C-alpha cells in the first residue's frame, strides 16, 4: 500500500564488465528519505535511472507507483521528480526561465504557476536571483534550483542523484531540511550519496557496493550490529599514526582511523569484551579507551570484512628523511590568485614542518585547488610567495617540482597507456634511471599488487586500482613533499583506509603532505587544517582545536562539519559587521 517503488531481482549489465546491478530487490516507501549509499561505481545512478524508466533492467522488474517501467515509462515520468547529477539545468537560461521551461514540460496549469513559483522560490531562497542565469549561480544555488525544477508538479516520488556533490556544508544542510519537509508531506525521497555520514540521517538505506546490495533497512539496524565494539582511544602519548598502525596489526582490531588526537577502533565481534585493555596499553599510561557510538562507516567496513592492515610496505621501503630540522617544507605566504575580477584565493598563509599532514578543507570552488596548484608550481600566483623544500616557486619551479609528488584530483594518468607504461613514463618524467628505476617500478608493482594488471589500459582499471596507480606514480621518485588533491573522493572505505595507511607510513618517514578534501572525516586524519571558504582561510588549527573552538552548551562534542558551519557563520557575520 505504502510502497512507492518495488524492485524485483534487478540485473543490469553494460558490455562485458561485471554487472552494474546484480540481483537487487527491495522496496521504497512513501513519506521517507531513502538513501542509496555506496562508493562510485556501486550502481547508484543506474538504480535511479531504472526508477525513472529511462533505462530498463536486463532482467527483473521495476514498479514505480504500481506502474511497470517496461510497460508504462511515460506514466512514471509524469508523476516523478528527478534531479540528475549536475542538476539538469540550462545554464544559459535564467532561474525563472528554467522554471518556466520545466513547468511547461511537466504541464503545470497556468493558473497555478504564480503560486507554485512563489512557493518554490521562497522555499529555496532564490527569489532574489530569479533573473540570474543558472550558469552564474553557486553550486549550492544550482542544486536548489535543480530541486525546485524537480518539485514543480508535487511529485509523489522525488529522485535525487548525488545532490550534495560540490556543495558547501551549509547548503547541504539547507537542502536536507527541505527534503525532510517534503518527506513529512508524504513524498517519497530517494537520495543517492557516496558520503557515508549522510546515510545515517536517512530513514532507510540501500547500501550498494560493486553492484551488490549489501544491506537494506534503517541505518541504525546496521550500526546496531557493531554496538559496543567501537572505541575511542584518547590521551595517547607519542606518534599516534604509529600507534594506529600497531593497533591495526592486532588480530582483534578490524578497523581503525585517526579522529583528531584520538584513535577510533572497531573490535572483532567475538573479542570485543576482553581485548580493549590490552589495546589501550598501546597508547601509553594515560591513554583512555572508551566505547563510542558506532558510525555508518564503521558498520560498512565491518560488513566488508574489516579494513586492511596498518602496515605500509611502501613506507617501509622509503628512506627516512632527517627529522628535526626546524625549517618548513611547504610554505605559503600571502598567496593570492585572481582570475579577472574574481579572487580565487586571497592572502593564504601557512607553513608545514617536516612530517606533518596539512589539510585544506572546503567546499568545491572555495579556492582549495587554486591554492594547491600555486604551491606545486602549476599556477602562477598573482601575489605572495610559496616555497617547497626551500625552493622559491617563482624562481626555481623546476627544482621544487622535482622534490614533490603530485596526485591530481580525478584520474590524471594516461588512460590509453597500460599500467606498466604509465609507471615507466612517470619514472622517466621524474628522471629515475637505470637500476634504480627498475627497482622502484618493481617495488611499487609489488606493493600495490599490479602484477595481474600490468598490461591493462589504465582507463579500464577499477576505481580503487586507478587510485593506487595514481599514488604509485606520485611517490616513485621518493618526494620530500606529497601533494594530494581530493585523493579519495568516491572510493570505497577499504581503498581509502589502505591509501591512508600508506600516507601515514610515509609521514612517519618524514614526508610532508598537503592534502585537499571536502570529506569532513578525512580532515580528521590531518595534523592541522585550514578551512577555505570563498577564497580565504577562515580558520587554521588542529582538528580538535577547531572543534573545541565552536563547542557550546547545546553541542558539547561538535563534529568537524558542525565546526565548519559555525566558523563560516562567524565569518559571514564578521564580514557583514
Amino acid at each position, binding site marked *: 500500500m505504502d510502497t512507492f517503488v518495488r524492485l524485483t531481482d534487478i540485473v543490469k549489465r553494460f558490455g562485458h564488465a561485471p554487472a552494474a546491478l546484480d540481483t537487487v530487490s527491495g522496496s521504497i516507501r512513501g513519506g521517507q528519505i531513502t538513501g542509496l549509499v555506496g562508493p562510485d561505481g556501486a550502481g547508484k545512478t543506474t538504480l535511479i535511472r531504472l526508477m525513472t524508466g529511462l533505462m530498463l533492467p536486463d532482467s527483473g522488474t521495476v514498479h514505480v507507483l504500481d506502474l511497470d517501467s517496461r510497460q508504462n515509462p*511515460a506514466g512514471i515520468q509524469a508523476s516523478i521528480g*528527478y534531479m540528475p547529477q549536475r542538476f539538469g539545468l540550462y545554464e544559459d537560461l535564467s532561474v525563472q526561465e528554467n522554471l518556466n521551461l520545466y513547468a511547461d514540460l511537466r504541464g503545470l496549469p497556468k493558473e497555478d504557476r504564480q503560486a507554485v513559483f512563489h512557493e518554490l522560490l521562497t522555499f529555496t531562497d532564490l527569489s532574489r536571483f530569479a533573473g540570474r542565469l543558472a550558469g552564474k549561480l553557486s553550486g549550492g544555488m544550482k542544486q536548489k534550483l535543480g530541486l525546485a525544477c524537480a518539485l514543480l508538479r508535487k511529485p509523489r516520488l522525488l529522485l535525487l542523484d548525488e545532490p550534495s556533490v560540490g556543495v558547501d556544508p551549509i547548503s547541504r544542510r539547507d537542502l536536507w531540511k527541505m527534503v525532510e519537509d517534503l518527506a513529512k508531506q508524504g513524498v517519497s525521497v530517494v537520495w543517492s550519496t557516496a558520503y557515508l555520514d549522510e546515510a545515517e540521517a536517512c530513514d532507510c538505506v540501500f547500501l550498494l557496493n560493486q553492484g551488490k546490495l549489501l544491506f537494506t533497512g534503517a541505518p541504525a539496524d546496521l550500526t546496531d550490529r557493531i554496538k559496543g565494539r567501537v572505541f575511542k582511544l584518547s590521551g595517547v602519548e607519542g606518534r599516534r599514526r604509529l600507534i594506529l598502525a600497531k593497533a591495526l596489526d592486532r588480530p582483534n582490531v578490524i578497523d581503525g582511523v585517526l579522529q583528531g588526537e584520538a584513535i577510533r577502533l572497531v573490535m572483532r565481534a567475538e573479542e570485543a569484551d576482553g581485548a580493549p585493555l590490552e589495546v589501550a596499553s598501546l597508547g601509553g599510561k594515560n591513554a583512555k579507551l572508551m566505547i563510542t557510538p558506532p558510525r555508518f562507516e564503521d558498520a560498512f567496513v565491518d560488513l566488508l570484512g574489516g579494513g586492511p592492515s596498518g602496515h605500509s610496505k611502501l613506507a617501509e621501503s622509503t628512506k627516512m628523511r632527517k627529522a628535526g630540522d626546524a625549517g618548513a617544507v611547504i610554505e605559503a605566504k600571502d598567496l593570492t590568485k585572481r582570475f579577472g575580477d574574481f579572487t580565487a584565493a586571497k592572502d593564504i598563509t601557512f607553513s608545514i614542518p617536516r612530517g606533518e599532514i596539512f589539510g585544506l578543507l572546503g567546499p568545491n570552488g572555495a579556492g582549495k585547488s587554486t591554492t594547491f596548484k600555486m604551491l606545486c608550481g602549476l599556477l602562477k600566483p598573482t601575489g605572495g610567495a610559496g616555497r617547497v623544500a626551500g625552493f622559491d616557486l617563482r624562481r626555481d619551479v623546476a627544482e621544487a617540482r622535482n622534490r614533490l609528488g603530485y596526485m591530481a584530483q580525478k584520474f590524471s594518468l594516461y588512460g590509453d597507456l597500460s599500467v606498466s607504461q604509465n609507471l615507466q613514463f612517470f619514472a622517466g618524467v621524474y628522471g629515475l634511471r637505470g637500476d634504480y628505476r627498475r627497482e622502484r617500478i618493481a617495488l611499487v608493482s609489488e606493493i600495490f599488487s599490479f602484477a595481474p594488471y600490468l598490461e591493462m589500459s589504465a582507463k579500464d582499471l577499477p576505481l580503487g586500482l586507478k587510485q593506487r596507480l595514481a599514488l604509485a606514480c606520485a611517490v616513485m621518485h621518493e618526494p620530500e613533499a606529497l601533494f594530494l588533491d581530493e585523493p579519495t573522493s568516491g572510493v570505497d572505505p577499504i581503498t581509502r583506509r589502505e591509501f591512508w595507511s600508506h600516507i601515514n607510513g610515509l609521514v612517519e618517514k618524514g614526508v610532508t603532505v598537503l592534502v585537499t578534501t571536502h570529506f569532513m572525516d578525512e580532515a580528521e586524519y590531518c595534523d592541522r587544517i585550514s578551512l577555505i571558504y570563498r577564497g580565504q582561510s577562515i580558520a587554521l588549527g588542529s582538528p580538535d582545536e577547531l572543534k573545541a573552538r565552536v563547542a557550546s552548551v547545546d553541542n558539547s562534542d561538535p563534529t568537524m562539519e558542525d565546526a565548519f558551519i559555525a566558523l563560516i557563520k562567524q565569518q559571514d557575520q564578521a564580514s557583514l559587521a
Partner: protein
Amino acid sequence: MRTETADQASDRCRRLATLVRKETWQILRDPSSILIAFVLPLILLFLFGFAVSLDANKTRVGLVVESKTPMTEDLAASFRASRYFSVADAYDRRSFEQDLVLGRIRGIIVITPTFVRDSVGRFGPQIQLIVDGSDPNTANFVQNYVQSTVSNWAAQRSTELATPSPAIRIEPRFWFNQELTSRDFLVPGAIAIVMTLVGTLLTSLVIAREWERGTMEAVMATPVTAAELLAGKIFPYFVLGMASMTLCVLVAVLLFRVPFRGSIFSLYLLSAAFLIPALGQGLLISAATKNQFLASQLALITGFLPSFLLSGFLFEIRSMPLPIQWLTTILPARHLIPSLLTVFLAGDLWPMFLRSIAFMLTVGAILFALAARNVSKRIG
C-alpha cells in the same frame, strides 16, 4: 473522451512551443551558434568571393615564333595583348622546357613554320601548344584560352581582309557565365556549404551538448516525447539555416554582384528541401555519439567535406573515378548545387528543381527515420 484528446494535443503543442522557445533563447545567447551561423558563412563567402579564383588571369606562357612572317607576328601580337596571358618570347622551344618543368610557365605556344601554309589549308591555321599535363585543371584553361585567342584572331583577320571565313570555325561561347568568372559559380556553391554547416554541424553539436551537460536526462524524465524533442530542435535550426542562407544570398548579390536570374520562391524552396537531409544528418550524428567532439568530427567528415569536395562545387564530378561518381549521387549537396547555380545564373528550370527537391527530401526522410530510431527515450 474527446476533451481528453484535445487536452493531450494542447499539451503537446505547449511542450513543443516551450522547447522551441528555449532553443531560440539558447541560440541567441550562445555566441558560438551565432559565430557558426553568421560569421563563419561570411568568412567563407569572402574567401570564395575574393581570395579563391579559378580563372586563368594572366597565366604565364612561353611564346615561340619559329618563322617570322607578318601573319605570325600578327598572331603573336594578339597573344601578347591578351588579358589572359603574360607572354615570354623565345625563338626555340627548348629554351622554355626547363621553365615548364619547374612550373615557372604554364604552357608553351609554338607558332610553327607550317602555320602560314595551314592557314589556307583545309584544317585552318594550326599552332602547337605544350602544357603541363600533371596539372590538368590549368592545362585545360590554357588550352581553352589559346583556342579562343586563335579563333578571335582568325575571325578578326578574315573580316579585315574580307576573305571568306573557313567553312568550319570553332567559336567557343560560354552560356550563363559569359565572362567565366569563377566567383559567379563559387559563391552560390558556397551557400550550399554554409547550409551544411548550420544544418549538420551546429545541430549535431547542440544535442550532444545536452547529453554532456546532463540536461537531456532531466528533460527526458518529464512527460516530453522523443518526437517532441526532435521537433523542438529542428524548427529553430531550420529557421537559423534559412536566415544564414538569406544573409549569404544578400551578400552574394549585393556585394559580389552575382547575377540572380531565378525566383526567390524557387531559391527558398530548394534551400528548404536541402536543409531537411542536412538537419536529419546532424540529428542522427548527435543521437548516435552524445559527445560534442566526436559529433563535430563526424559532422565535418560526413557532412562538410563531402559537400565541399564531392558535390561538384570545386571539382568536376565527371573527372572523378567512376566509384566516386556513384558515391556523389547520394549527396544532397550534389543535387542542390546545380539547381542553385541555375537559380542564380540561368533562371527557374522547374523539371530540374523538382527532381533535385524530390531526391533531397527522400534522403532527408531516410535520415530522419534513422535519427528517430536512435533518439528513443532511453539511456544506455
